[in-house]
């Protein structure tokens, strides 16, 4: 991964941060606003004193004016659990450059952002099911471990996003942010899986990654199309008309994912594996509101 992220690129990443739509309660104190009140410098509210409260938080000025004890409450900054779900079915090993390469790079970039912001980062590998899961790690020191884990994940199996994401229920502890990177060519669908993530109080970000060959297939004539995942065969006579029908279908399919995400208040972004990584990280994702400036 080091050769992918040079120092300049990493320096650019440093200026970015993850944007969670919701204020999610974390586990450890961190740099992210929490729904809980805590000990940061940011004032949040007053409440009546009750026995057992910390004397240090009593507002003595208010007592002087009103002769009543009020407790001064401050915002608590907690960490965020970022779970990156990487689709590593065989269909992701396609395109020039391959979709999986781009997916891993994006996942690594998000992991970097999370770990450098004192957030916890977990990685899930999706294909037929949740093939591999790296439990949440915290701190910059875990960066190498996370990146190594991502780099060594192989592409195998079919895509079943529903099953893979539902398998995550075994590991989910509390809310967080889930990033799903996939081509979404999942015959069994994706909706149930994403809904389940929402049920698990995850702020879901969907990145659909397509290869240029999938957007404009360089196909013509009488062809026997073999699915690289399942080995399914489709005999198609590809003509201009059929190509147009395919592109129309692809557009409808992507629109379906987008609409689903908007209805569920998920972030959605479609990416091409041929797009430069820097453009994706430093332009596309910030302009979609998924990443923000520190």
């Amino acid at each position, binding site marked *: 991964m080091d050769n992918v992220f040079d120092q300049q690129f990493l320096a650019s990443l440093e200026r970015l941060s993850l944007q969670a739509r919701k204020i999610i309660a974390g586990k450890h104190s961190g740099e992210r606003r929490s729904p809980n009140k805590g000990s940061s410098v940011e004032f949040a509210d007053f409440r009546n004193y009750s026995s057992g409260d910390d004397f240090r938080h009593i507002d003595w000025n208010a007592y002087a004016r009103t002769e009543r004890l009020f407790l001064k409450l401050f915002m608590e900054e907690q960490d965020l659990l970022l779970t990156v779900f990487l689709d590593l079915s065989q*269909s*992701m090993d*396609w*395109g020039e450059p391959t*979709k999986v390469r781009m997916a891993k790079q994006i996942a690594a970039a998000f992991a970097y952002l999370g770990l450098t912001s004192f957030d916890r980062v977990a990685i899930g590998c999706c294909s037929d099911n949740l093939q591999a899961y790296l439990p949440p790690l915290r701190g910059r020191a875990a960066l190498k471990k996370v990146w190594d884990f991502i780099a060594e994940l192989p592409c195998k199996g079919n*895509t079943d996003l529903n099953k893979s994401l539902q398998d995550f229920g075994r590991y989910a502890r509390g809310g967080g942010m889930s990033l799903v990177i996939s*081509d979404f*060519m*999942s*015959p069994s669908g994706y909706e149930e899986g994403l809904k389940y993530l929402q049920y698990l109080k995850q702020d879901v970000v969907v990145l659909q990654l397509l*290869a240029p*060959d*999938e957007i404009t*297939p360089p*196909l013509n*004539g*009488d*062809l*026997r*199309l*073999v*699915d*690289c*995942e*399942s080995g*399914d*065969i*489709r*005999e*198609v*006579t590809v*003509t*201009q*008309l*059929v190509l147009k*029908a*395919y592109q129309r*279908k*692809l557009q409808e*399919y992507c629109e379906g994912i987008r609409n689903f995400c908007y209805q569920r208040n998920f972030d959605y972004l479609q990416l091409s594996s041929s797009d430069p990584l820097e453009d994706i990280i430093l332009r596309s994702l910030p302009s979609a509101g998924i990443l923000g400036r520190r």
Partner: protein
Amino acid sequence: MHLFNPLALGFAVIIPLIILLYLLKPRRQEMMVPSTYLWEQVQKDIEASKPWQRLKKNLLLLLQLLAAALLVMALTRPYLPVAQDSARHLVVVLDCSASMAASDISQSRFDEARRVAGKMADQLGPGDCMTLIAMEEKPGILVSASRDRKEIKRLLGELRPNSGSADLEPVLAIVSAMLKNDNNISLLILTDGGVKPLDNQIKLSCPVKVELIGRSSDNLAITTLATRRQGPQVITLARVQNFSNREIQSDIELRAQEMLIDVRTLVMKPGEIRDIIWDELPPGVELVEARLLLQDIYSPDNQAWAVVQVAGKNRALLVTPGNIFMEKALNLNDALDLYRTSPENYLHQNEYYDLYIFDGWLPQQLPQASIIVLNPPASNPFFTINGNKKNIASITASADEPLLRYVDVNGWQMASASNVNLPAGFKSLLQYEQKPLLAAGDYQGQRVALFSFDLHNSNIPLQTGFPILINNLAAWMLPERQDNAGAISGDEYRFAPLANSTEIIVLNPDGKEESFKTPFPPAFSTIKPGPYRFTQVSDDREHSFYVVKNSGNLLESNLKPQNLSWILTKQKPVKSISNREFWPFLAVICLFLLLLEWEVYRRGY
């Protein structure tokens, strides 16, 4: 419908072959794709809209089957027996006279006639043929009984209207002769009706259709331009005629040697003829031109040229021991300076003369000029004489001989005449018992007239026809002088060059010079209207004169389409059954279908 080639139906085997090809599964190339998930849905979509897609898919098959069926049909050469209204041999007569250049119809009358003739060629059936005749001064058969439409159209394309008139009579004579061998002829005459008056009206026994081409008669023309010398003064006369039925105003200008002399305005009533006279011309002018400045539908007759006459005489030498009759007759010709000498003195003279008259004597070598030989001696190197005839009373004259014009030979008698064997190129004008008494012709490039008798032994010098005969002969034999050159007609100009000319240079109206060396052609081409300048070059001098050819004449300038209904016959076109093949149409539709099929395939329907 019948088939010329039913065996070609065997080719229909390609139809099931095409269907078989559609039944066979195409050999597909295997391609790996990341997912067939969407392709499956695309296929479902295509199959879901089955009626439309099936129809589209079958469109290729349908087109191919249809094209194959049409191709097989075309190969069988189907035909329909149809009754034809027109006869099988169409004779198209195209008027090529000058008036056909009139532009009252789009482009010109001639182009319209050519278009109609081309259309007729296109409409020829498989068994039909066409003869194309160009109606000019002398008719020309361009193509005879041809079925080759391309050739007919090519010849039509090359045809141009000439500057002369159209003569219908010889055309009718040709068609009449054709009718003797072919009774399927139908005649179509494309003309504006302006043809020469016919001497004999020939009635044809075939269907005749006259298509009059032309609408308007709006034409103002200079029909005559002439000059006359009265002492030192030259008078020029231009006759202008309004052939239209409306009043026309135009300016007329007179130019002498390209220099503008005078401009007058004319307001001509319908049908009016007006003579315009100019009294004064600058001295030394040889050529005058009158020009109407109006732009009408026929422009060639808006210009005319005339040659100004100047004095000039030919020289003639009478070599005789004494012939008062000949001397008197020759002296009557004002354009001739006559000199006389005896045979003895002839050998010592070295002057040049335009005409030599040898009376009863011939030199060993003939001079290079026109010659009249009277009573040639029995022994001479030029003419063979076999005895003589005596007491000749009944002389016969050749009919329609221009040299005998106005010459009455009744009562001509002679005591004796030599039996002369005429050399080649001579024509007998007067004869007695098949033996020539007077002959004329070309002898070694010279014009020679031969009297085989002695005038003194006849009563001819006392007859009124004798000086006329001598004048006709002199006019024929003497070279053209500028004073007798003038307006000409026709596409050729003939004149007798000066005897010692070595070169003739002709300056055409378009300014192009043509040079002719001896032997000179018998005639010079004068196709274009305008002035022609002929320069005869001899060793020591040049002699030039003008002749002019004008377009304006009463026949061609009168552009009103003339009715030729008298020529029409009551013959109805012979209805004949012809087999009209229509395989070319099938082939064209087949080609169109194949193009459509290719486009359908390209678009991927």
